[in-house]
């Protein structure tokens, strides 16, 4: 800890390092930020930008950047404040971490912080005629009445350039040239798996560029959380990536438990783990189904869904719901598992294990499937790190399909082991911590918790001022990063591959549009 303290002050004398918190916190003025960022990346090996959290500290705007060192897995966060509250500006780090492209656009969209040097400074989720920036504390919701006309000027973008004297000017640009053959996919389209839209520029059947248009189902969960208490907030975690409902909720619970210093009983941890793995299994089954269906193999889709039913029945019996189970709670889980839980899980494991072989027979070895999937949409290791692609999509690099199939096998193994352990614990036991405060007040400060959800690293950032409600909540969702590589992976592939690639990246739209 002290080591990093010295290293950073050596790199940048203006930076202040605070090592008292959970992770080292570096505070740096905007003028030195870009140089420090480059040094952090090249010299200290912080090669992954995990999250960019826009902030409104009422006296100033700014960002909190979470950086990960992939060799030591150390986390570092950097707080950068804008000098000017009237015209908030920060230096963009897109040139260092390409993942910042969409992350910074999101911050611009919600906080109005302009990133100097960003190549494509458009709004990410909201309409381009939106008035004001909704996550600012002084935002007035009445300034945006319901609009009945289409937005215009979709093809225009701009960027902000700084010259040698530090003077910042706005430069207009275009997303697509006038003579490009742009085909629209979505927002209502069979294979976008939700309300998602791409605009693809084609040359014959070859894709030249993909522009992702997002935000059709954005609900502003982060803004809503600011007016909710912590137990209330849990509800929304399940409505982001609904295929990782348990896992997201688990993450949020862990973050709050960490802040409160709560100890979770072992049995509750075990139950949570089993639910997480069941969720992952169900998510991968869905992913298998969708990937196969998007390539035209409709039958395989039904097979995937048939097995998912087993898992949903297990959820139904223990949690009382098939989706949005609301099972984890701060301190443990809501209720103990159903008496047949272990039996059901073992049965589901057996059936899925057997049927996985059938999947391979039906689809994996199929010559058409192999030809459709090999060499398509390759994501190199460097790109996966640069774009912070985690989970199966990042782990795979090439064969995202097979990684999910293998992960399912591992899920089954984990579940079987957990079944044995839970059995040893007995049918019933302590499933929730005994002393959970009724009124939860997190001490002032900020916390960050990451878990691996079905689609990659899911992170929760909570900043509290000591009240029952948080000042800022940010969810770092894996799918948001996944859409960042759509253009990269689809380029120079065919229009049919766009569908294969997006299906193999396997994003869930509500997780992008939080």
């Amino acid at each position, binding site marked *: 800890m002290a080591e990093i303290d010295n290293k950073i002050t050596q790199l940048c004398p203006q930076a202040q390092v605070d090592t008292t918190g959970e992770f080292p916190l570096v505070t740096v003025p905007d003028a030195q930020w870009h140089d420090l960022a480059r040094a952090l990346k090249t010299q200290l090996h912080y090669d992954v930008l995990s999250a960019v959290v826009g902030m409104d500290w009422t006296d100033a705007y700014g960002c909190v950047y979470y950086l990960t060192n992939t060799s030591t897995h150390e986390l570092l966060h950097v707080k950068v404040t804008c000098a000017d509250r009237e015209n908030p500006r920060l230096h963009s780090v897109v040139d260092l971490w390409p993942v910042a492209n969409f992350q910074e656009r999101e911050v611009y969209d919600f906080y109005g912080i302009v990133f100097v040097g960003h190549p494509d400074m458009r709004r990410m989720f909201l309409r381009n005629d939106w008035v004001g920036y909704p996550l600012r504390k002084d935002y007035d919701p009445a300034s945006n009445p319901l609009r009945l006309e289409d937005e215009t000027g979709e093809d225009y973008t701009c960027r902000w350039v700084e010259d040698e004297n530090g003077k910042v000017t706005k430069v207009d640009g275009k997303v697509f040239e006038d003579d490009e053959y742009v*085909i629209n996919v979505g927002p209502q389209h069979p294979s976008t798996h939700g309300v998602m839209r791409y605009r693809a520029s084609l040359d014959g059947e070859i894709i030249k560029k993909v522009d992702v248009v997002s935000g059709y189902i954005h609900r502003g969960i982060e803004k809503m959380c600011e007016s909710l208490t912590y137990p209330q907030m849990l509800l929304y975690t399940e409505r982001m990536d609904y295929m990782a409902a348990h896992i997201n909720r688990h993450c949020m619970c862990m973050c709050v438990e960490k802040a409160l210093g709560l100890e979770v009983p072992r049995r509750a941890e075990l139950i949570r783990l089993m639910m997480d793995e069941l969720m992952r299994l169900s998510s991968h089954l869905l992913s298998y189904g969708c990937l196969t269906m*998007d390539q*035209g*193999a409709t*039958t395989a889709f039904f097979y995937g869904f048939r097995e998912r039913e087993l898992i949903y029945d297990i959820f139904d019996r223990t949690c009382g719901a098939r989706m949005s189970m609301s099972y984890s709670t701060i301190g443990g889980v809501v209720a103990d598992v159903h008496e047949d839980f272990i039996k059901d899980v073992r049965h589901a494991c057996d059936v899925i294990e057997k049927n996985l072989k059938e999947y391979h027979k039906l689809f994996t070895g199929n010559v*058409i499937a192999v030809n459709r999937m090999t060499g398509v949409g390759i994501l190199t290791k460097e790109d996966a790190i640069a774009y912070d692609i985690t989970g199966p999509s990042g782990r795979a690099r090439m064969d995202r399909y097979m990684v999910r199939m293998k992960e399912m096998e591992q899920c089954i193994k984990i579940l079987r082991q957990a079944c044995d352990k839970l059995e040893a614990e007995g049918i019933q036991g302590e499933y929730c911590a005994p002393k959970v405060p009724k009124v939860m007040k997190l001490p002032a400060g900020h916390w960050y918790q990451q878990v691996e959800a079905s689609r990659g690293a899911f992170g929760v950032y909570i900043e509290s001022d000591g009240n029952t409600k948080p000042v800022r909540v940010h969810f770092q969702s894996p799918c948001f990063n996944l859409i960042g590589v759509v253009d990269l992976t689809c380029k120079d592939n065919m*229009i049919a*591959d766009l569908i294969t690639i997006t299906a193999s990246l396997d994003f869930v739209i509500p997780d992008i549009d939080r």
Partner: protein
Amino acid sequence: MFDFGIVTRWIDDLLNSVMPGWLSTTIECVLVAVGLLVLYSLIAIFYIFYERKVCGWIQCRLGPMRVGKWGLLQVFADVIKILQKELITLWNTDKFLFKLAPYLVLIASMLTFACLPWGKGLQIIDMNIGVFFIVAVSSIGVLGILLAGWASNSKYTLIGAMRSGAQMISYELSCGISILTIVCLAGTMSITGIVEAQQDGWFLFKGHLPAILAFIIYMIAANAENNRGPFDLPEAEHELTAGYHTEYSGIHFGFFYLAEYLNLFIVSGIATLLFLGGWMPLHIPGWEGFNAVMDWIPSVVWFLGKAFFITFIFMWIRWSFPRVRIDQMLALEWRYLMPIGLVNLVVMAIIVTQGWYFGA
């Protein structure tokens, strides 16, 4: 085996005895046309039901079950619904071509449909170039699809139509070559002639390896010509929403849909005609009793039974395989199917001239 020629000749004689020749010919034409249209729609309705049930069975589902017993009336309900739908015409489209396209597709499949040998003596016209005629008229369909894609003035339909054009023209070749292989074996292009030549053994069994190879090539190429999975790129609903017929509604869409199912029946029928002996019963040389029992089954049942069986294979393929990509689809045809087909044709010619086939 009952010869339906007796019935048709009897009707012909009856009409000729009471009216002049031109009138009886006209009446016969009308009768045949009405009969064909009714049969056409009935087979389409049956095929839609058949596909739904087979697809359901393959996918561990039941298929339609609510309307009528086992969902038997579901397709009728769908047809009534589609007839009531509004025909939407779009702005900035070529309205004449837009409306013409579905009829072209329908006409092509009707013309081919009329050539099938339904049973002994049940054939509309027995031309001496029957097979040639089938190949010729079935290609009109691609014109309708191209027109539909072009006239809709939409990017999806245009891509769909272009894919379809490339696909159908390519696979037409393989299809034609495998048909030629059998014509070579039969020594005639007449449909009746081809069926009769299979009296003592279906061509699939008679023609050694080349006939089996031609059958496989025909099955692949016919599947592609039909725009059915795994060659359903022109519609590719996951990429192009619905391909060339994205912008069609109501019965105009219905015509495409109808033609697609009828084409499925037609290619199965042609496969039956060329490889499985048309309406000929299964005869095993030497087994007189068995052959007599087989003869007892009406020829129409034989023909339909074989066609439905081939269709089942098509459905099985469709619901098992993922879709190919356009470049892979073209590579399959031009790099593999066509060269193999050509070599196969030469081998078949050698076999025929040397008399090496069974029952020579």
